[in-house]
C-alpha cells in the first residue's frame, strides 16, 4: 500500500513538473471518450432515477389519486419509519443476510479447500458447482418450493407433517437454504482465488514445525486471504441484502417473511403508493451505502479492480 502510494506520489509529482505533452493530452481525451458512453448510460439509468426517487419521496403521490400530488416534506419517511412493516422487513433481511453469508463463508471455505486439494475430480467439481451459480434464481426457488410442498415434494416428509413454507421461522430457513445453495459456489470461487495466493512453502514449513491443520488454516491461510475474504463478504452481503426473487417464489412475503425488496415492490404494486414506495427505495439505498461504507472504512475492504497492476 505505502509503496503504491509513493509510486503514485512520484508519478503525480512528475506529471505536475512537466506541462502535459500533446500525447498525454490526447491520451486523456481518448480515455474520456471511450468511457463516456458507459458513464452516460449508468448515470442516466441510476443517477437520474435516484434523484427522481428522492423527489417523489418528498411528495404525496398515490397512483390511485395521481392528481393529488403535493410536497409534504419528510412525511413519507415518517410513515415508513413508524411502520412496523419496515422494521420487520429490515430485521428479516438482516437475519437472512447474516445467517446465509455466515453459512456460505464456512461452506465456501470448505468447498474451496476441497477444490484446492482434491486431485481426482477437480474439473468435475468446478464444472458442477457452476450450475447453482448460473441457474436462474426463480427456477431454483421453484425447485425448492416444490421440494417442500406437502405430498408433492421429496423433502416434504422430512419433518413429519410440517409445512415449512407456511411459518415464519421455517419459511426463512428454507429461504436461507435456497440462498446458500445458489451462492456458495460464487463464494467458494472467490476464496479459491484467494487460496492460490497462499504460498505452498509456508504451509509446508508450518507443517514441519508441527502446526496442526486447524492452526495452518486459522494462523496462516485466513490471515493471508484476508483481502480476498473481505471482497467476497462485501459482495455477498450487499447482494444478499437485495434478496427478492427466491422470497417472491417461496413465500411471496407471506407469514412475515418479507425482505426490504419485497416490501418496496409490494408498496408499489399492491399499495400503489409511489411516495411511500420511493421513500422506502431511498431508505434501502441508504442502508446498503452504510453497510458498504462500514466494510470499506471499518474493515479496510479494497474496492475490487480499483488498484490495477500496471
Amino acid at each position: 500500500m505505502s509503496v503504491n502510494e509513493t509510486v503514485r506520489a512520484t508519478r503525480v509529482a512528475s506529471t505536475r513538473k512537466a506541462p502535459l505533452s500533446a500525447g498525454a493530452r490526447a491520451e486523456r481525451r481518448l480515455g474520456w471518450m471511450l468511457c463516456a458512453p458507459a458513464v452516460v448510460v449508468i448515470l442516466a439509468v441510476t443517477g437520474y432515477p435516484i434523484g427522481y426517487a428522492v423527489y417523489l419521496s418528498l411528495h404525496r403521490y398515490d397512483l390511485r389519486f395521481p392528481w393529488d400530488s403535493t410536497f409534504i416534506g419528510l412525511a413519507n419517511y415518517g410513515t415508513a419509519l413508524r411502520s412496523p412493516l419496515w422494521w420487520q422487513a429490515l430485521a428479516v433481511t438482516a437475519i437472512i443476510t447474516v445467517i446465509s453469508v455466515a453459512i456460505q463463508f464456512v461452506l465456501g471455505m470448505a468447498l474451496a479447500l476441497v477444490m484446492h486439494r482434491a486431485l481426482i475430480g477437480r474439473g468435475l467439481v468446478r464444472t458442477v458447482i457452476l450450475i447453482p451459480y448460473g441457474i436462474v434464481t426463480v427456477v431454483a426457488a421453484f425447485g425448492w418450493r416444490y421440494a417442500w410442498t406437502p405430498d408433492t415434494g421429496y423433502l416434504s416428509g422430512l419433518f413429519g407433517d410440517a409445512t415449512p413454507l407456511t411459518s415464519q421461522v421455517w419459511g426463512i430457513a428454507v429461504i436461507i437454504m435456497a440462498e446458500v445453495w445458489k451462492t456458495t459456489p460464487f463464494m467458494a470461487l472467490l476464496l479459491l482465488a484467494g487460496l492460490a495466493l497462499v504460498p505452498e512453502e509456508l504451509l509446508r514449513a508450518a507443517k514441519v514445525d508441527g502446526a496442526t491443520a486447524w492452526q495452518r488454516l486459522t494462523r496462516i491461510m485466513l490471515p493471508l486471504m484476508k483481502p480476498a475474504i473481505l471482497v467476497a463478504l462485501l459482495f455477498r452481503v450487499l447482494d444478499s441484502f437485495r434478496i427478492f426473487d427466491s422470497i417472491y417464489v417461496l413465500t411471496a412475503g407471506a407469514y412475515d417473511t418479507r425482505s426490504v425488496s419485497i416490501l418496496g415492490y409490494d408498496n408499489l404494486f399492491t399499495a400503489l403508493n409511489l411516495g411511500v414506495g420511493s421513500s422506502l427505495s431511498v431508505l434501502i439505498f441508504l442502508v446498503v451505502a452504510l453497510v458498504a461504507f462500514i466494510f470499506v472504512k471499518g474493515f479496510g475492504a479494497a474496492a475490487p479492480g480499483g488498484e490495477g497492476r500496471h
Partner: protein
Amino acid sequence: MATIASTSRARRPAGRDRTAMLGWSAANLVIVAVSLIPLLWLVSLSFKTPDTITDGRFIPRSWTVENYRGIFTESLFTRALLNSLGIAVISTVLAVGLGAMAAYAIARLEFPGKKLLVGLALLIAMFPQVSLVSPLFNLWRQIGIFDTWIGLIIPYLTFSLPLAIYTLSAFFREIPWDLEKAAQVDGATPAQAFLRVIAPLAAPGMVTTAILVFIFCWNDFLFSISLTSTERSRTVPAAIAFFTGASQFAQPIGSIAAAAVVITIPIIIFVLLFQRRIVAGLTSGAVKG
C-alpha cells in the same frame, strides 16, 4: 477431512495418502450430489404425468413429454422465450461493446477520473435494484417505454456494464500490448496489427464477459415483473410466475418445471463449454494476484 488425514498420519504413514484420497473423493461426491439434486428434481417433475406429479417420489413412476408439448404450444411461454433471448442478447452485445471501450481506457490509458469511474462501477454493481423500480416504473410510463424490450434492455445494460468493465479490464491488463507495435514494425498496418494480433488475444476475455453478462440478464426477475405488463416483453422468469394450469383444476407444476428446465439448458451449455473461462472471469475482477 484434514483431521482424518493428520490423525492417520501418526498411526500409519503408508495408508495416509489413501485415506486422504478417499476423504477428498467422498467430499467431491457430496458436492456433486448437492449441486445437481435440485436441478434433477425439476427435471423429474417436468417428466411426471399429471396423476403422479404429487406423489413426492424423486424418480417418476410414469414418464411423459406432455408438459414440454404443453408449454411450447402456449404463446405465453414461446413469446416469453423469444423476449428473454432477444433482450438478453441485445443487452449482452451492448454491454460488452460499451464495456470494452471503457475497459480498454481503464487498462491502458492514464486519465484523470479513472479511479472515480471504477468506484462508480462498484457502487452500481452493489446498488439495490428495488430502489430503481419505483422511479423507473413511473418514468417508463411517462416516456412510453413501459412494457417494451428497450424498457428492460436499459436497466439490464446499466447493471451489467460494471460487471463487463471489471472483467474486461482485468483481462485487458494481461494482454501483451507491445505485440501490436512489434507487428507494425514488422510491416503490418495498424488495422492488421489490431485484427491479427490484438483481437485474437482479447477474444477469450470478451467471450467470458459476454457469458457472465448473458447469465445476469437471463436471470433477472425483479425488473421483468415490474416493468412489463403483458407477454409483449415479459421474459421467462416472470412469465413462469404467471403460469396457470391448462384448466382451472390442473396444477401448473408440470408446466413450470418444464419451462424451468428449458431455460436452464443455455446455462448448462455455457457451463459445459466454458467452465474454465467462467471461473477465470468470476474471479478476475474480484481478486488481484
